[in-house]
């Protein structure tokens, strides 16, 4: 299991390679990567991510442990950045390794759904017209209902 809450950028390629390596008994690897999206109407200058040091790591570790147990994973990874990010930068990624593809996919979606609404991160969008905290979405809360 690999959990990291960090300010620095991560290297998707290197992380994916490291994660996939050495899992000869796991046939399926899924990765999800979140990228700071540019806003079409009001161009985004930056995305600032605040978090709750101490609780964040514990929460992510707990989610990964749950995913590993529930979907019989061989391994799980969560990286989430905080601080100021530019459009196009990678915010976070998860990776899952399972024997079968269904488990690998479901575990990655489970991790993402929990991460969205249960890990203590808060995003603020900074545009020319000012800065605004991103509102939580009902659909993100609803997404938890299926697990």
């Amino acid at each position, binding site marked *: 299991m690999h959990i990291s809450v960090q300010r620095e950028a991560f290297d998707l390629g290197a992380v994916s390679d490291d994660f996939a390596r050495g899992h000869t008994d796991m046939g399926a690897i899924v990765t999800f990567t979140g990228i700071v999206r540019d806003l079409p109407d009001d161009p985004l200058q930056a995305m600032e991510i605040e978090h709750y040091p101490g*609780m964040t790591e514990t929460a992510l570790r707990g989610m990964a442990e749950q995913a590993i147990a529930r979907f019989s994973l061989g391994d799980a990874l969560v990286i989430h950045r905080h601080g100021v990010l530019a459009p196009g930068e990678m915010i976070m990624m998860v990776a899952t390794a399972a024997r079968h593809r269904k488990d690998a996919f479901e575990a990655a979606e489970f991790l993402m759904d929990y*991460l*969205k609404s249960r890990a203590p*991160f*808060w995003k*603020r969008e900074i545009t020319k017209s000012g800065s605004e905290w991103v509102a*939580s979405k009902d659909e*993100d809360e609803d997404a938890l209902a299926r697990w």
Partner: protein
Amino acid sequence: MDILYFAWVRERIGVPREQIETSAATVMDLVAELRAREERYALAFSELASLRVAVDQELSDFDAPLVNVREVAFFPPMTGG
């Protein structure tokens, strides 16, 4: 007890954390105490439905007891990922 604030709750209160003396029995009691302090607290805690609370770094409910608790954090719904 350490009280922490994040995101717009932090901005409304004006500090990221503070230490307070309290004998509040539950989170709800603590919220009532804070609300009574000053306008900025009343404003930050005006709509509990849009707030979340963590007790000793675990997501919790507003009716959670505060026995032997060291740290309570208030913040908006999370928007990670």
